[in-house]
């Protein structure tokens, strides 16, 4: 059941948050050995929260539609008293002394937090194969990846191990796994949701996002976590609209831009066809479409793989074995202790990006790499903003292809290119959502990406909702035992 269906069932007294939490915990116990979505299951914490939610619903005083909703958190979000690994050995044994703002807000809304989900180490990857604790598998085909880096959260929602989940998106880490797992994944505008307590990968790009089974649940989750946070200087101080109310209204009269660069070489024909059909469906609902050009699209990956590693090399400097997490024993001095700890604690992809980023920031190279990448980032942003000045929403595929097989993309560059349609939006700080728009012949979900103006998540959700209502894709569920 979806979150809004659960709330309705609680209201009618058909079930209770405790019963639902128990059912989800039982399903996790039964299925997660196959999927590998969770790194930590917080059974006691979940049942205690559920019991409190039971009492509120019984008293007719729930905190809102999220009261009693069983949710999962990507293990990059700090949880007080619950280990937070970021999928890395280097944070072994790290138990944060504080909750991330989004965790506080979900709990304040009555959510039942089931546990922490698997991810590519420090959110660096597009397949959740780069977790120090083993990969997560795609519920639609256990031989395939769920996407990444928020693969655990996406798989948990797709496999109905949780009704919703939070992830984080730096270059596509919510939208791409949402596409691969056939769920709704929203990356809000940069600054819309507080980053306090989100363990940083690339600070200027990181944003907390949501996974849900439909647009209505996405509206509920976003409404709960969005809003200014005085602890995050980059969070936007703007009112949070009623996203649920904004779902109504349909797409009649909306202008949808179709960026031609997103349908070019390298795109899987099955994906292109499904997305084109989705655009036709939206036209049938009364939207008008317009072809647009985003000439800087091709530069996105290059810019991203200079800026994100540069910021990562800085953000990850603190993991040195001195204060928390892993410390490799037996070193004869400080420098040896630090370098041995980092050598043992970080995986290959993280080390690759730390080295790339360190190089990009080095004296003599800064202008050529970091400085230049910032300039091109501005061009990418202007490109998208110019298009969105003419159209209300851009519609495009989320990824060039459907979920690939575990081990299929061993070449880092092939993996990086999977983000080609998600990275430009991240660079521009704009909101985007991925939703299911069909299946490949092999039965794998295809993702439709909607990109909107800054702080205009409401319009994205309205389009997504109209599309869901007009199509029957959500009825199909993965055939897990």
């Amino acid at each position, binding site marked *: 059941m979806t979150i809004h269906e659960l709330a309705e069932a609680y209201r009618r007294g058909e079930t209770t948050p405790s019963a639902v939490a128990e059912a989800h915990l039982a399903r996790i116990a039964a299925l997660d050995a196959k999927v590998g979505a969770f790194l930590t299951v917080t059974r006691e914490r979940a049942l205690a929260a559920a019991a409190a939610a039971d009492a509120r619903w019984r008293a007719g005083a729930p905190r809102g539609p999220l009261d009693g909703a069983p949710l999962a958190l990507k293990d990059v*979000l*700090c949880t007080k008293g619950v280990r*937070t690994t*970021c999928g890395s050995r280097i*944070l072994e044994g*790290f138990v*944060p*002394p*504080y909750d*991330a703002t989004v965790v506080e807000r979900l709990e304040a809304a009555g959510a039942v937090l089931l546990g922490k989900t698997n991810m590519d180490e420090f959110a660096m990857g597009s397949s959740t194969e780069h977790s120090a604790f083993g990969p997560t598998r795609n519920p639609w085909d256990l031989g395939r990846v769920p996407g990444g880096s928020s693969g655990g959260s996406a798989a948990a929602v797709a496999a109905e191990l949780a009704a919703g989940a939070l992830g984080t998106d730096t270059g596509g880490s919510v939208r791409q796994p949402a596409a691969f797992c056939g769920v709704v994944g929203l990356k809000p505008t940069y600054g819309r949701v507080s*980053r*306090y*307590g*989100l*363990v*940083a990968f*690339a*600070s*200027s790009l990181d944003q907390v996002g949501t996974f849900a089974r439909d647009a209505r649940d996405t509206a509920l989750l976003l409404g709960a976590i969005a809003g200014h946070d*005085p*602890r*995050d*200087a*980059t969070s936007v101080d703007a009112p949070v609209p009623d996203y649920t109310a904004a779902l109504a209204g349909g797409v009649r009269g909306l202008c949808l831009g179709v960026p031609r660069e997103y349908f070019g070489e390298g795109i899987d024909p099955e994906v292109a066809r499904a997305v084109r059909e989705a655009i036709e469906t939206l036209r049938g609902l009364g939207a008008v479409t317009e072809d647009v050009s985003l000439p800087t699209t091709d530069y996105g990956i290059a810019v991203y793989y200079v800026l994100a590693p*540069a*910021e990562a*090399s*800085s953000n990850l*400097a*603190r993991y*040195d074995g*001195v*204060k*928390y997490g892993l410390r490799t024993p037996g070193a004869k001095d*400080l*420098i040896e202790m*630090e370098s041995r700890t980092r050598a043992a604690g970080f995986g290959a992809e993280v080390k690759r990006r730390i080295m790339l980023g*360190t190089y990009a*920031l*080095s*004296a003599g190279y*800064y202008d050529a790499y*970091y400085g230049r990448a910032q300039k091109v980032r501005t061009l990418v942003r202007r490109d998208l903003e110019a298009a969105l000045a003419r159209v209300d929403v851009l519609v495009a595929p989320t990824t060039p292809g459907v979920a690939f097989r575990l081990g299929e993309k061993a070449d880092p560059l092939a993996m990086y290119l999977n983000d080609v349609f998600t990275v430009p939006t991240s660079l521009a700080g704009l909101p985007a959502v991925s939703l299911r728009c069909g299946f490949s012949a092999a039965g794998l979900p295809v993702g439709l990406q909607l990109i909107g103006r800054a702080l205009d998540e409401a319009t994205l959700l309205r389009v997504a909702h109209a599309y869901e209502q007009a199509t029957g894709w959500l009825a199909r569920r993965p055939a897990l035992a």
Partner: protein
Amino acid sequence: MSAPAQAGWEVVIGLEVHAQLRTRSKMFCGCPTAFGAAPNSQTCPVCQGMPGTLPVINRTAIEYAVRTALALDCRVNAGCRFARKHYYYPDMPKNFQISQYEEPLAEEGLLEIDIDGAARPIGIQRLHLEEDVGKLLHEGTLATAQASLVDFNRSGVPLMETVSKPDLRSPEEAAAYLRAFRAVLVYLGVCDGNMEEGSLRCDANVSLRPRGSAGLGTKVEIKNLNSFRNVQRALEYEVQRQAQALEAGERIVQETRLWDADRDVTRPMRSKEYAHDYRYFPEPDLVPLQIDRAWVDAIRRDLPELPRARRRRFVAQHGLPPYDAGVLTQSRALADYFEAAVRAFPQPKLVSNWIMSELLRALPGDDERAIAGAPVTPERLAGLLGLVQDGTISGRIAKDVFERMLRTGQDAPTIVAREGLTQVADEAALAAVVDRVLAQNPRAVADYRGGKTAAAKALVGQVMKATGGKANPGIVNRLLEEKLSRI
């Protein structure tokens, strides 16, 4: 320092001064900044650099930096930006320091110093904000310690770095600059200026060039200059070292040297301690800071009177010699003390004399806290001077009373009454003492009558001795004169 070795060389010095700002909370989190608390008791996830935490700028720190920038006639930039400075050291929890690099808060100012009575402007290149690091504690010495501990209480305390231009021409000028700079900060109330507690720290860049040359020689950076005395001594040593090297035809190596105050030498730091590429880049967790003009103007309007202006005013308004004015304005507390005392006892030069000779014998004049908390308040000093003026006690007794006031914290009338120090001004009583002294000293009386008028002085002394110093000297003199002329 022997001058000959440097005779042909001109000294070029620039100072970088780090001042801890007296904000209640830290630069990027809400933790308190008080010195001396139990280790790690003033920390939170943010200043411990925990994963997921974010910095938030302390507005008061910005205000203090703007205030300082205005006092130094700097240009306050309309926009400034924080940047990350990277190096690995365990006292720095994130392994980068949030500082400012390409877009500092303020630039291009000046500070006037007095050299041999003449004012000389020293250029200020830039002023920026950053966060302080923690403190390492080693079990035993660094070389033998089996373990080291980190105290993050200081981590995140606001630091203001002010870089002078290379305008200083001698170690004496460098020390004078630091003194003047410290006085400005203390007057502004932005820093307590306490060098022992590390509130004010100084690094120096020093080079030599042939006299008359306009270029700059190879500079050496000297760290660990934690007192005025060390600044001067370290620079004197370094100037001599460089001069001797140059005279011997050697080249100066650009390096960082550490002042070793125990051995009175500078020595090179190991290369790995300073061979950094800091990989600066703009801090993505903080948005660029826009400094509102109206706010800057409001801060400018609220600037207090600065040391130089106050010194000039003390000369003009109170008629003090420039020397006195200089001593009395060395700290804001001392200048305030002087003015409060003068309000209660309007004889500025007398008050100045008492402060310089008595108060500053007991308390350091540049120690704001000591002066502000002096057991002899300005009002009590005025009360003491009033007792001298009305003849209740003599000037000599007053000095003893001042000492007791310092020790006991009591006021002058209480001490004078309890100790029976009131000056004897009763003519009848004194006349009896004078008669007795004259009777006991026939020889002196004879000398006086024989024309040796100096003998009268010995007789005055005898009378004072007989009264325990409490006799009013004026009355004694008059009585003696009268009685001797009648004999």
